[in-house]
């Protein structure tokens, strides 16, 4: 099972002829992901990494039966690319692109909802179901198949955590980087629900950060709806208010969105919060034993 991506994933790469698109297409293919083609307007008929390139997503879907798309499209055109994928019937869209204007995301959200398109990102590293499908820019080699789900607003911090899990012998069902932007697709609560319903996931690691109140909502959801154990880490306890800490969404606004509030919400929901990344493997082991 796992969630969102697996052996049944048929992936196309929007922006496959770009530098990043091409590079990561090779990486994803090498990992074993079923990449079936790419899209690049005006480059239809070419091949990249042995894959056919199409002018439109519609054409790519028709020719390859793709159900998932990953975008390496420059920010000014990315929202349009997401819409194109949605309109063409793609079920799951992963937007790697950083720097998309927030109102572009706001504008496309109702359409994605109407079409039932799931979106991961933007400004995210993507996701992976170890040994089945890598859809993103994550380093595949650090992951290991297992029973722990992971959701994170961060990139490298996620790899750091996963590396510690893997080196401690703890494998992962699926790891999802939901991205660092304020307006994004699937978020903590949506994914927690998926993990709760996934028979291959026994516990979840949630990596939050300052900004917004998604962690607080996740805490409420865990308390009310989840039976599987969750452990959390929150980055940005030392961040000053009013400054964007690298991610567009990582900002403490007028005293709300602080790490303290988030940690308190998790603790009130009975979710253990790691003081430092290195504590996560210990907490997960404990959770799996007693959870």
């Amino acid at each position, binding site marked *: 099972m796992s969630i969102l991506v697996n052996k049944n994933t048929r992936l196309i790469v929007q922006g496959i002829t770009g530098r990043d698109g091409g590079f990561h297409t090779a990486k994803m293919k090498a990992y074993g992901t079923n990449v079936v083609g790419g899209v690049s307007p005006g480059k239809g008929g070419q091949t990249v990494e042995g894959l056919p390139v199409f002018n439109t997503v519609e054409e790519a879907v028709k020719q390859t039966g793709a159900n998932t798309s990953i975008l390496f499209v420059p920010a000014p055109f990315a929202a349009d690319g997401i819409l194109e994928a949605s309109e063409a019937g793609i079920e799951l869209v992963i937007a790697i692109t950083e720097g998309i204007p927030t109102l572009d995301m706001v504008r496309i959200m109702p359409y994605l909802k109407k079409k039932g398109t799931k979106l991961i990102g933007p400004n995210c590293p993507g996701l992976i179901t170890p040994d089945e499908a890598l859809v993103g820019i994550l380093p595949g080699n650090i992951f290991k198949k297992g029973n722990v789900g992971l959701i994170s607003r961060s990139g490298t911090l996620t*790899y750091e955590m996963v590396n510690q899990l893997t080196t401690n012998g703890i494998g992962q069902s699926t790891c999802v980087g939901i991205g660092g932007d304020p307006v994004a697709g699937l978020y903590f609560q949506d994914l927690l629900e998926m993990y709760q319903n996934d028979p291959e996931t026994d516990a979840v690691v949630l990596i939050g950060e300052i900004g917004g109140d998604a962690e607080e909502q996740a805490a409420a959801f865990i308390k009310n709806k989840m039976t599987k154990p969750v452990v959390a880490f929150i980055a940005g306890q030392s961040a000053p208010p009013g400054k964007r800490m690298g991610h567009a969404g990582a900002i403490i606004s007028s005293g709300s969105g602080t790490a303290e509030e988030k940690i308190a919400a998790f603790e009130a929901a009975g979710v253990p919060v790691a003081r430092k990344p290195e504590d996560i493997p210990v907490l997960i082991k404990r959770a799996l034993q007693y959870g």
Partner: protein
Amino acid sequence: MKIHEYQAKEIFSRYGIPVTRETVCYTPDEVVAAAEKSGYPCVVKAQVLTGGRGKAGGVKLVKNKEEAREAATSILGMDIKGYTVEKVLLAEGVKFQSEIYVGLTIDRNSKSVILMTSREGGVEIEEVAKENPDAIIKVPIDADLGMQPFLARKIAFRLFDDFNLVKQAADIFQKMYKICLDTDASLVEINPLVITDDNQLLALDGKMNFDENALYRQPEIEKLYEPDENELKEIEAKEKGLSYIKLDGNIGFMVNGAGLAMATMDMIKMYGGEPANFLDVGGSSNPQKVIDAMNLILSDEKVNAIMINIFGGITRGDDIAKGLISALEQLDVKVPIVVRLSGTNAKEGLEILRGTNLTVVESMTEAAKKAIELSAH
């Protein structure tokens, strides 16, 4: 990106939202001249890109020429939260019955623009949110539908009984929404929007923030950008692919990834250290980026130790180590450097680094403790 009150109100006015008559002044003489023209009482308001100017004494009501000069002299040049007041606004004095808050911002949960309004205007909305949250009306705007007349009216009817005010408010809500979309604003705020003695709505203050990701398509807005010293540094860093924020401590940082950088800073703080900066160098093992990053860190004279925390992902740890060495060779760094490297080929990377005068450690905890220790010398 922030702009000044007077700039926000110029935009409001261009869209037909009624604002106070006012003049931007750079000298006390200009203030006095403007005040004489405006008539008394009028208001002298510091124009700085930060909040809290009222509490800092940056806003003064003046009743005559002498008071105008006095206020101008005291406010111009004043320091408000690190910002020097270089210009003030001389605004007409307005008699009003009550103050409304109206703000449009982006709501992460509804993934839409949200309108917030309250009859308890004039104070910061966050205060109202804490003390009397029921006094705030919050309405997410369906992006497909936009701020339709009926919706603007419906919200306005929750504020006012007087239909004359309802119509004015609904009109202002629609215009603010249009401004938000047209300019890629992340905040459009009028606080207070007052009801004048002759029952007209008037924007007494205005605030706008903008989405930096959208500035490429907002040349008119970009022109208004007045970055301060720290922001200039941040912009310069960004042009080099670095995400840098100046902080107040003494331990400099270089980390790949924003989340990992935050976690690294947090750990330093947890063990009693003080971060001098946030610095995300992003992916790749490009030595030039490391050189730029080091120069940026060292431009802060308070820095007396540096911690480098790198996770090898797709770029392998040994390549990163080589890049680091090549970069550091070109620099003359006098402060101690602690390096922690993990992830793909971390061991090979650490092996390479051990041959240098860098302090090489394996865990984040160790790195943090070591950096604090070295910075204390």
